[in-house]
């Protein structure tokens, strides 16, 4: 009866989880979604305490307190640190699932049939590699590890052989589940593979990697549900896995990478020979005064923020910029490329934190349909996502990547420290157009100076 009761509570929890995601479809209902999720989780948690199998509670309580002690600070991080926080939470999710799989193996061994052993081995392999992979991703995002891709000759062969070794050992274990000494080896090799999988990947690819790890972690939980015959885990894992999967596909499309390319971890940085003809070409540059004068006369200004804006901590200056122009009757909107931040949707969160209303944040398609009417497109800390070469020159390494068509605007302004190329090491034709003004300097200072000019001239 108690067991039925907990099943009933789990079903209610699952329904609430689905509603929770359903309500996330719009910012207006999204917070209700969080509440639904919290109620579902609390319900499941409380009922579990009445499970008659439980004989000791001391360590559970201690672990819950420790978990809350880690979780609260992780829930309070700065918005710029959300990508690494997310990677850390992927790591914890993977750790929890992998460790339960390991415990389950030792509880059952050697009386495990081939089918169960396959499930357990698969679950533990994916969980372990997602754990270390997520830790490496977090380390890169936190800049504890080099952001640059770390590549060496024959890398893919080494990585795949390591994965192969884990799989071979797992297969041996399927036929001889009693070889308990072999199991830690499977775990260790999988942990190693996670490191090898993510280490070669550069910072610019992090949105894809994070999404992919998200889906791995989800599917690990679902697999654990199969192992434990627990439908609540199967559903929660499937939802999480589906979400990560969808986001991975969106990120792949936004970077014009094939899905198989990403699935098999072969996503090292394109090794571009940046040795193009280095002819001296002239660009037009402008001072804050000149930029302000043009902006003042505009009707519609579109800001294109990139991760460089967040690095320069310029969000709040950008908000002032938005305010002063809006007050003067200028329409100001923001064009957000899907890979503008370090994880899907990151840029929207950074701008929302700076109090920019979300109805002013346009996605790629919305922005591109507006751009022909835009008077000034102001690019702050973005590069490759505005490069017309992605659209026009089939020879370019980023050819085919969807871009924000800033060159359709009447005037383009680019805030940039220097003429150095972007992440992909590709020159940007945009900078040499007649309609383009280069605003050289630090993003935060430059936007601040423009704001000062605009406020000053408005005071007469």
């Amino acid at each position, binding site marked *: 009866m108690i067991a039925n009761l907990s099943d009933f509570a*789990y079903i209610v929890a699952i329904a609430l989880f689905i509603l929770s*995601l*359903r309500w*996330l479809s719009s*910012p207006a209902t*999204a*917070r209700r979604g969080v509440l639904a*999720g919290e109620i579902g*989780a609390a319900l499941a948690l409380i009922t579990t305490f009445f*499970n008659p*199998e*439980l*004989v*000791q*509670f001391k*360590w*559970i309580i201690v*672990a*819950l307190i420790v*978990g*809350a002690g880690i*979780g609260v600070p992780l*829930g309070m991080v700065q*918005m710029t640190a*959300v990508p690494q926080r*997310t990677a850390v*939470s992927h790591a914890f*999710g993977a*750790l*929890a699932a992998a460790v*339960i799989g*390991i*415990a*389950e193996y*030792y509880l059952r061994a050697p009386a495990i049939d081939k089918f169960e052993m396959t499930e357990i081995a698969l679950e533990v392999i994916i969980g372990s590699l997602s754990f270390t992979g997520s830790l490496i991703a977090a380390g890169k995002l936190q800049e504890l590890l080099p952001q640059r891709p770390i590549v060496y000759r024959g890398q893919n062969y080494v990585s795949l052989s390591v994965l192969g070794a884990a799989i071979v050992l797992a297969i041996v274990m399927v036929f001889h589940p009693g070889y308990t000494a072999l199991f830690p080896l499977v775990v260790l090799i999988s942990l190693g593979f996670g490191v090898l999988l993510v280490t070669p990947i550069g910072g610019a690819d992090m949105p894809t990697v994070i*999404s992919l790890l*998200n889906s791995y*972690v989800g599917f690990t*939980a679902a697999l*654990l549900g*199969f192992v*434990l*015959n*627990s*439908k609540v885990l*199967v559903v929660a*894992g*499937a*939802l*999480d896995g*589906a*979400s*990560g999967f969808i*986001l991975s596909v969106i990120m792949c499309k936004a970077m014009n990478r094939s899905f198989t390319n990403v699935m098999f971890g072969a996503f090292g940085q394109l090794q571009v020979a940046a040795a193009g003809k280095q002819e001296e070409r002239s660009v037009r540059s402008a001072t804050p005064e000149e930029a302000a004068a043009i902006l003042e006369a505009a009707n519609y200004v579109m800001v294109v923020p990139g991760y460089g804006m967040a690095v320069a901590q310029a969000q709040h200056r950008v908000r002032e910029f938005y305010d002063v122009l809006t007050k003067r009757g200028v329409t100001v909107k923001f064009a957000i490329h899907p890979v503008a931040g370090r*994880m*899907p*949707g*990151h840029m*929207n969160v950074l701008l929302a934190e700076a109090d920019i209303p*979300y109805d002013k944040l346009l996605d790629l398609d919305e922005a591109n349909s507006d751009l022909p009417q835009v008077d000034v497109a102001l690019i702050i800390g973005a590069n490759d996502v505005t490069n017309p070469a992605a659209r026009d020159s089939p020879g370019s390494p980023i050819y085919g990547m969807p871009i924000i068509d800033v060159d359709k605007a009447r005037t383009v302004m680019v805030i940039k420290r220097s003429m150095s190329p972007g992440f992909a090491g590709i020159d940007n034709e945009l900078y040499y157009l007649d309609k383009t003004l280069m605003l050289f300097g630090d993003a935060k200072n430059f936007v601040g100076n423009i704001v000062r000019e605009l406020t000053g001239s408005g005071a007469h």
Partner: protein
Amino acid sequence: MPPGFISNLYVFVLAGFVGFEVIRRVSPLLHTPLMALTNALDAIVVVAAIIIAGRPGTKLSAALGAVAVAAAFSNMVGGFLITDRMLRMFKLSGRKDQ
């Protein structure tokens, strides 16, 4: 094949489709909160961890269970917390609610 495998497979496939349809509708605006929220929901593995940690087993299973409880619960607490913090920041331009 263990009992329950087929019914679990049904559940998995159906949940996958439901997830796909529901998540497809989430605005790109909210993709970061989406990932934080699904992380928190995924932390429901804490219920399995509690059972492993608390039921009669070996010292090893109890210890591993406790590690899993801590790891999963930190995701649950942290995930809901940060999702709500992020969502609170999304405002429409009409409103002046300072």
